């Protein structure tokens, strides 16, 4: 209780001092834009990571605060976390770093906990099916993580965090110009966590509380290191970039509470390389992107039950190349695009597999004031699944400078993963007769942007068909089939208001009516497990200065309605209501300190049954800028 009172007093302090002169504000608070530049008509959110700079934050925590995002985590720092949108599964959402795909051809959603926030400039979240622009897997939405560019002046910062349960993070960022036409950005980060937090263990008897006891998560530590190096060169009107990023991690894997894996761990590595060039050629804007992403997952569990994997190693390589030519004339624009995607996998249970997709696309734009129109068409030719057409169309009507009405419609698809096609181990047998999953989406709503606030509110409807589900074949085997269908409709609302310089209120609310549409008894019309129907975030940010010391504080409230854990909607997890608070202080222009309490009320929460999350945790962060 004392902690709560102290924190409230600290938060109220800026209110009293608000009338004083603002000198240095820490942290700087920027608005998350409700638009991304690549798709002006889409309902989206662009999160400026400077907002989180002096605080301790993980990628999954940042994404969990975005409108429409359903982030589910299996534990503390570094534990598997995934994102999904609009009733889609995690693997039906495309995650990119600087445009390079992180979705593994092996299948499964992208583990966003592996992506460090250090070195990230912003995160664009685009909701809805958009395979026409982004390709396969963009069914529910797209998350594009954009790394920092070198600046025009030398900048450097060091940041260190210490927190509960052995959390320690250190990162450094250096940005320096190399002459007048080039620049270099470097980022290094290292994270550690024991994650040995306490939780209420129901002893496997979820209906009987008499034997519940306080337990402690074990075998849950994390060690990871990441780097980013980016070199830019600007000869004349051209923009050339080369970047390399990588992460190596060792994660201990505690397992589900009722089936613990006390000695299991995972070694993970990610290496990505991108080369891009952009410049004018004969009156056209030429863009070339070439990239490669290698991921390796090695799972060890020496004590695993015999029928489960004691060791597995999966290596994937994704090669991407894209060439586009943009032509603009008056209010019209046209951009033909050609791309090539090659995915390779090596796995002891899947063997060596490769497949390639050649694509051709065309984007047409028209901007007759006050309208904006965009139409994108794409043809993919996959070596395993043949050709597939996708489209996306969007329109915006500006009623005033600050008010737009937007609407979009698009299609998406996901090709079956190599696991779904070829896996043959334990209880799972792959099915080579699978077809791609498909989706269609549309949305409509207003977007308001004023200097003192804004709002984005849209209705959406999605339809998913040919969904792949695992079906029990006998008492021992499951095999995937294209048997399922689902729909999702709802409302995504994002609003913020900044009535005074020292105060900002922001929040979002998502209503996600994601329903099974298979027609099967006990499933049809039920909310899809893992898809909460109501999600909301509220945040208050305060900023002021006292005797030339910049002060800031925030309080955030996160609500997620409990997930159903049975497809018949007979069982549901508890609702999640979390309060996080923090203060920041900038005693000088170069130093910024923050202290945070997450899950202030020490609630026992869980996103997935059997994987308890942390209770109350404390973090302190120091950041020095040079």
């Amino acid at each position, binding site marked *: 209780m004392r902690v709560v009172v102290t924190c409230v007093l600290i938060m109220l302090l800026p209110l009293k001092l608000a009338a004083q002169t603002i000198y240095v504000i820490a942290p700087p608070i920027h608005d998350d834009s409700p638009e991304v530049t690549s798709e002006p008509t889409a309902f989206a959110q662009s999160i400026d990571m400077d907002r989180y700079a002096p605080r301790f934050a993980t990628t999954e925590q940042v994404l969990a605060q975005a409108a429409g995002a359903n982030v589910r985590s299996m534990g503390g720092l570094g534990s598997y976390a995934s994102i999904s949108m609009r009733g889609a599964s995690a693997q039906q959402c495309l995650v990119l770093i600087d445009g390079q795909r992180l979705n593994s051809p092996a299948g499964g959603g992208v583990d966003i906990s592996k992506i460090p926030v250090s070195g990230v400039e912003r995160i664009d979240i685009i909701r809805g099916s958009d395979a026409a622009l982004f390709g396969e897997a963009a069914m529910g939405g797209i998350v594009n993580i954009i790394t920092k560019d070198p600046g025009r002046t030398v900048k450097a910062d060091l940041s260190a965090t210490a927190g509960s349960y052995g959390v320690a993070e250190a990162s450094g960022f250096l940005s320096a110009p190399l002459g007048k036409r080039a620049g270099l950005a470097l980022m290094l980060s290292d994270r550690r966590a024991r994650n040995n937090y306490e939780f209420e263990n129901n*002893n*496997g*008897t*979820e*209906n*009987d509380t*008499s*034997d519940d*006891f306080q*337990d402690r998560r074990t075998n849950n530590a994390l060690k990871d290191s990441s780097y980013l190096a980016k070199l830019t060169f600007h000869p004349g009107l051209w923009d050339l970039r080369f970047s390399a990023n990588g992460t190596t991690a060792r994660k201990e894997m505690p397992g589900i*509470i*009722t*089936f*613990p894996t006390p000695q299991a761990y995972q070694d993970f590595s990610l290496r990505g390389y991108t080369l891009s060039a952009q410049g004018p050629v004969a009156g056209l804007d030429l863009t070339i992107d070439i990239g490669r992403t290698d991921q390796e997952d090695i799972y060890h569990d020496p004590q695993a*039950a*015999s*029928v489960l994997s004691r060791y597995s190693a999966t290596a994937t390589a994704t090669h991407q190349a894209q060439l586009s030519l943009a032509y603009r004339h008056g209010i019209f624009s046209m951009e033909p695009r050609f791309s090539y995607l090659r995915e390779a996998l090596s796995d002891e*249970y899947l063997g060596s597999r490769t497949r390639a997709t050649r694509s051709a696309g065309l984007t047409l734009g028209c901007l007759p004031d006050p309208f904006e129109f965009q139409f994108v068409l794409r043809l993919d030719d996959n070596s395993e699944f043949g050709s597939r057409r996708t489209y996306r169309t969007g329109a915006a009507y500006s*009623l*005033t400078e600050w*008010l737009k*009405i937007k609407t979009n419609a698009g299609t998406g698809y996901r090709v079956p993963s190599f696991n779904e096609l070829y896996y*043959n*181990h*334990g*209880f799972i*047998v792959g099915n080579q007769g699978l077809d791609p999953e498909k989706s269609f989406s549309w949305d409509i*709503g*207003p977007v308001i942007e004023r200097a003192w606030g804004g*709002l984005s*509110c849209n*209705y959406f409807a999605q339809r998913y068909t040919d969904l792949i589900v695992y079906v*029990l*074949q*006998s*008492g*021992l*085997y499951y095999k995937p089939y294209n048997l399922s269908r689902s729909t999702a409709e*709802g*409302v995504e*609302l994002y609003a913020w208001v900044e009535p005074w310089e020292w105060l900002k209120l922001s929040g979002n*609310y998502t*209503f996600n009516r994601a329903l099974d549409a298979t027609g*099967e*008894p*006990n499933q049809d019309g*039920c*909310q899809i497990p893992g898809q909460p*129907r*109501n999600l909301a975030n509220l945040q208050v940010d305060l900023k002021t200065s006292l005797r030339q010391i910049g002060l800031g504080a925030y309080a955030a409230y996160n609500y997620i*309605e409990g997930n*159903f854990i*049975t*497809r*018949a*909607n*007979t*069982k*549901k997890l508890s609702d999640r209501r979390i309060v996080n608070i923090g203060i920041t202080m900038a005693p000088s222009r170069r130093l910024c300190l923050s202290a945070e309490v997450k899950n202030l009320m020490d609630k026992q929460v869980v996103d997935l*049954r059997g994987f308890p999350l942390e209770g109350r945790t404390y973090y302190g962060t120091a950041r020095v800028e040079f």
Partner: protein
Amino acid sequence: MNKRIINALCAFVLLSLLCACSKAEERRQSVTAEDVSRGLVIVNSLAETLSVLDGRGRIHTDVQVTGASPNAVISDESYLYVVNSLSNSIEVLKAGNLEMVSEISVGAGKNPMAAAVIRPGLIAVTAFLSQSLEIVDIKAKKVVRSIDLKDIDLPRDSAGVGGRSYPYGVAVAGGRIFVTLANLTDAYGGLTAAGAGVVVVLDAESYEVLSNVELSGADPVAALVYGDLVYIACAGHYDGDITKRKAQGFQGDGTIECIDVQSLGHTATTYYLTAAPFALSLSEEGILYTSNAMAGDIPRIDLATGKISYIATGGAFISSVLCVGEDLHALDFAEDKLLIIGVSGTVKSRYSVGDGPIAMLSLADVAAEGFITAVMTVYPAIASQGTTITFDASESLASDSVSGCAWDFGDGETAAGWTVTHAYQTLGEYPVTLTINSAHGEASAASTVRIVPVSPFAVRVIDYIPAAGQFTDNPRYANPLKALGPPAGGTSPYQPDTSSVVSLGGFGGSITLAFDHEVKDNPDALDFIVFGNAQYDQAPLRFIEPGLVEISPDGVTWYLIPGSDSGVNTTNHELPADLVDALADGVYALWGYADLSPVLALPEGADPLVYFTAPDDPFTPGIDAGTPGGDAFDIAWALDPLTGEPAGLSGFSYIRITTAMDAVHGGALGEISTEIDAVADVGLEEVN
């Protein structure tokens, strides 16, 4: 800007929010005891619920939640037990109304698949992933034995590949437990049979392995007792070409085989099916039906003629079958249907049930007396004149409200209420009866109270201060009165009684008891016995939960009995940190603590005043003939608390027992919490 447009936008936003903001509710129904009465209970494995088909042919879907991924349901006289394979638990429900009584963990990672009743309150559970058989004491709410089945010899396939044994089905007959073992390997990719399956037979008392019976079919998954035979359902026939079977999509080629309960031999009869049977049921006419995990055709075997035919149901995946009266009931897992099939083999009706129906049970023979059971406990059952005796009916079960609960003490006195007290003034034996009335009828229970001049057993609870522990929240195990009077004892050293013990909880939990006289020191013999619920594993190994014993002549000054660890005191709990006490040089490593040795029940015809006052030798392994076991003590072992020297007490009237080890969470074996059944003075035989 047009004001109408602004208004329209505001209306859009507000309307959107109003349309939203509704929570998704859980879909569950309620059910009454009347609906449950003589109905059919269906386990929905994917919905994790139970459905009920009541006696009037109405389905009540999702009426009770289960644990995660329930796989089987069985029953004894009054309770249903649902086996939850993912949450590793056994859910105990009242048969009368499906009200949950408790949920018992069998241990993380076990993956229980099936269960069978050894006797009411004790069940055998197959644990697939831990490759073991778990013996669960329902009243104690814990696993009391875990029998490792990893090392059972299994046949190898033609390529010499050996499989591992995975227990699946289980049945109990003739004092034996029959466990079906799938013989599986992942050497060929997906999990497949490495060869024929095996049935391992264990003794239902000692759990010793009596025999391994090799089958001809693979993946034995279910067992059914019929007379002196146990029928085994093998879901897959091993033909040595797993790859081909996979390519063909597992068309189903199971067998039904038979084992003789007495000889434990495989009978000559094997039925070959074009199906994958996962459950068995036998009609009164001697027709054996099996489920079919690969199709909707139900195999029908006439045991008299050996003729096999198939009933076409139109279903896709028959997960279970059950004969009730003249009808055959079948569950279609894929279509979530209950099918009722008449004697002619035609489907008479189809009911929609919960998601993923996998097992069912008829309540027609369960709790047939009308869901009211009278259970009487008396504390203490042997006492001296004037001792206040407590009579308790709270463990009785009734499916509806009880209108009356009447006691007749046998001495002309009566009383009413769930818990009453009475004192007898005259020596003798008194028949006591309890009568409970409810809308479903009347139930009664009888017992005897014996009044003696001086009771050798504790007669009064002075204090009970349990420490935190997994049992002390449960009123059934936190009743200190259970330490009064004579012990109950187990049927063997391997099967302790847990119905009449009080748990002291974790380290530091204690109970203080008083005798109605002074327990005197006999310089030449042991003086008193403490009875707990320790048990043998493989004698002389013992599962122990040691408790420190202190005695006091006046209830004020206490004298510790240090036991075998001379350095121990009430603040030092450095006893061996293991529940198992090993033999060292022909003597027990531990002695002089409570709850070290098993306790045997009173033999038929024996006098409890004699039998339970005969001390066992605490130093040597085993239970001496003519004694009930338990832990015997000598008053001379007590130490003076000030000097640490022998106290030289002539006797005592009060005894305090304290849990001595700090191991609240002992992993799969549970916590270490001393349990006390009784304490007895051994020197009173001549008085009474």
